[in-house]
């Protein structure tokens, strides 16, 4: 392959990966936007989502050794899979908020974030104890179709990721910009106290935000499973940190920023891996995180500065 073809191929791969990071970054950004909390547990909700997806598929009779589905069966299975998994992770997110985070929401300082680290550890280790340390195969649901585009190839998998990701983001955009609930969310993000005085049930907004963010993380975890074909208790951390970098790069609190950041980090991962070596991917990504934090804490599209007022 020519360098140009390799480049094109890695751009395609990177954009598909980027959709996954974007979905995860959205959860970070939304929660941060509402309650200014970096939700470490988000990583592990994502990881848990892959196992939920696995269980849902097993319940539907699809196992790691089944052949890939086609036609209406495929569409039906996918819809059921996404609905069930996203609902489950959404509920998990709400539970975390209600049980662990609400008691410390108004505590200043580092307590809320430390709580989310604790929650992350609990989830990771519950999964470890339940499923064991070895990687689990994730059923290869999608047929292995591929199309040539120039010198590169787009797989059906990537196409599905892209389309589903886009649909979810459009849905979220509609919800935040065009509905009363979305207006309540934006108001709460601006000023929670003022929103409360205007009759907005801030607790409910927070719960909804956690549900939506975690549901998107659930979709992201299915992306991970479908794309890589495996899962394990340990996948949340690295992926989650990359997603977090996406949110910061795009501008924390900004929904378009999270999407842009996710795509850029996906591209960075695939291109960096190709040209600098996979082993340095994380160094590159975390360097981006640190550099953005230092030089442009607002990110690319953010308006909110993660600094002390």
């Amino acid at each position: 392959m020519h360098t140009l073809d390799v480049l094109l191929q890695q751009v395609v791969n990177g954009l598909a990966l980027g959709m996954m990071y974007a979905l995860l970054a959205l959860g970070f950004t939304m929660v941060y936007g509402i309650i200014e909390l970096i939700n470490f547990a988000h990583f592990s909700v994502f990881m848990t989502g892959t196992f939920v997806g696995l269980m849902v598929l097993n319940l539907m009779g699809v196992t790691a050794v089944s052949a890939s589905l086609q036609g209406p069966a495929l569409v039906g299975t996918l819809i059921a899979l996404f609905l069930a998994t996203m609902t489950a992770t959404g509920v998990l997110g709400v539970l975390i908020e209600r049980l662990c985070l609400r008691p410390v929401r108004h505590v200043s300082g580092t307590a809320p974030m430390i709580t989310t680290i604790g929650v992350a550890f609990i989830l990771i280790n519950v999964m470890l104890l339940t499923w064991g340390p070895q990687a689990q195969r994730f059923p290869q649901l999608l047929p292995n179709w591929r199309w040539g585009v120039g010198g590169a190839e787009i797989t059906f998998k990537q196409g599905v990721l892209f389309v589903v990701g886009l649909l979810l983001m459009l849905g979220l955009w509609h919800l935040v910009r065009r509905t009363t609930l979305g207006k309540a969310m934006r108001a709460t993000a601006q000023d929670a106290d003022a929103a409360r005085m205007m009759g907005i049930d801030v607790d409910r907004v927070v719960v909804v935000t956690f549900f939506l963010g975690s549901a998107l993380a659930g979709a992201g975890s299915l992306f991970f499973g479908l794309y890589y074909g495996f899962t394990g208790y340990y996948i949340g951390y690295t992926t989650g940190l990359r997603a977090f970098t996406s949110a910061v790069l795009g501008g924390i609190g900004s929904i378009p920023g999270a999407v842009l950041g996710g795509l850029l980090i996906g591209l960075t991962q695939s291109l960096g891996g190709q040209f600098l070596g996979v082993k340095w991917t994380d160094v590159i990504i975390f360097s981006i995180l640190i550099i953005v934090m230092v030089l442009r804490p607002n990110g690319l599209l953010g308006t909110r500065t993660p600094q002390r007022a």
Partner: protein
Amino acid sequence: MDLARWRALPLARRRQIFAVVLLAVGAAFPFLTGNAGNVDAAANAFTYVLLALGLNIVVGFAGLLDLGYAAFFAIGAYGYGIAASGQLKPEWSSVWDLFAYTGQVSRLVVPGQPDTVQFHFAFWPMLAVAAIVCAVFGVLFGAPTLRLRGDYLAIVTLGFGEIVPVVARNWDGLTNGAQGLGGIRTPRLFGYDFGFSPYPYYFLGLGLVAVAVWLSIRLQESRVGRAWMAIREDELAAGAMGVNHVHYKLLAFAMGAAVGGLGGTFYVAKLTTATPDMFTFPVSVMVLVMVVLGGMGSIRGVVVAALFLAFLQSVILQELTGWVHALGRLVGSAFLQRIELITSLELIFGVILVLMMIFRREGIWPAVRRVSALSPEQQAAAPSRGAAVQLSWSQAARADAAPRTLLEIESLSKQFGGVAAADRISLTVRAGELVSVIGPNGSGKTTLFNLITGLIARDSGSIRLEGQEIGALPAHAIVARGVARTFQNIRLFNNLSVLENLLVGEHARLQAGALGAVLRPPRVRAEERAAVDRALEVLGLFGNRLLPRLDHPAYGLSYANRRRTEIARAIMTQPKLLLLDEPAAGMNPAETLELMDLVRALRGLGITIVLIEHKLDIVMDMSDRVIVLDHGVKIAEGAPVEVRNDERVIEAYLGRRRRAA
């Protein structure tokens, strides 16, 4: 000895006795247990105690959540590992002669190949080198985070914490990659090789822990420790009291990292190997759990928690597993016999973090002492409103009574978005004056104070104190020049005692640095004593309001006493110019009168005062001059009577009078 006599001993003496007893118990432990496995576990546990004490400096004292602390553990470990193993074999050159001469390296001669250098640097100097190298990395990693809010700082440190093991894994030439370093030389002392017996490491670890505890205590109870805690409690107020937050945050990172480096060096010397997996995120979290469990900032709590969690890992869970298996055999349950509790260690960590944060954020053995409320007798004792005294150090200020310009502001402007909070304000304040600034809400009074004290940057204009421009200085430097303030919404350091709050106020007038704080030469001791004396003197201005509550944490004070403490803290900075932002807000009439007596007394001490106040009767009664702001513009200035009758002032307060049709 009975408890009463023990209590009667001075704190320092009690501590000495306690330390001797603890060290004796520590020294006797290996002989008492008689089990090499336990001694080995204890020696390993000391590594974690070291790490926890180091992280406690960063998280507990300075309030900087470092999630990548294991990076310093790794740097210390690899530093010694590389220096004491055959990993690096640079070509021989004359640079190495000096090291060869002191026995730190030797020349390796292989026929047919160029000569190389065999490293075997000695352990003891490397302890110091590792600490210094880690301190440098602490500053490097800390510097980018200085402007960031707490949780962002955490993420950036986490990023560094991730990068370091990745580098260790992939920089094969330096670190031998994933296999890690091997064949690291064990320490020697006067020809005695520590080898692989746990006993010498136990005593070495005990010694290092003792040093780290001593270091922590000395730092905590010093000007440095108070500055850290002030930053932790309220960074902005700390700056307004003269604490340079850049300096002290970096110092905290450096000190914490240095202790972590000691831990790494010790650990690797004992283990004789270092692999990248030893320094991953779960290690950072484990150390964090120790600090959280013990109580952030509580040295004793952190030591106990670190020992407990280390033993939980190495001994307790194993023992419990044995019992569970025995129970399983007894009841014939195969499930119980399969359980390995050690696998749930991280689960336990997670549960500890969540439960502690929800139910007991101050830790199991908190740093803040609980003090009982004053009894009615104590409260009524020596009722005095104070406020008629003088301060020993204020004499100099009183001596030069010649009227001269102290503060000179010229055409000062500040915009927030499109709103002009200060619009070409010019004013002067003469030494010894009491000037009031009044104006409707939102007229820019507090903004003016924020500009003068450097909390916000001006857009244009100049601010001169005694003829010198201070407009571009950071807040802490302005305090040092002699400007102090109080805040409209009281900003005390809530978890510090009244006395500690005052001592932070004196930060800019004291000199002790980290070294002085640890070594406490006579100069520093004298300085501390004098500082406490001055604090007591200042508290005396408030009669018996604050003196009986010296050791009470600020969060427990009544509203009026919080106001008083904040004023006392500002006086401790020994200001030439004192800016009081609504000191009488929320006070009842009696308290207000008392406060005004105090303000008059402060004037008597030669302190120039600028007062923002809404209670106009006070303003008219006390002020030499009154300045009126409206929408960021100075609309009037003059003696109280003039201002009261000024048409524009009346208009600003009451609105434009409707003209008769």
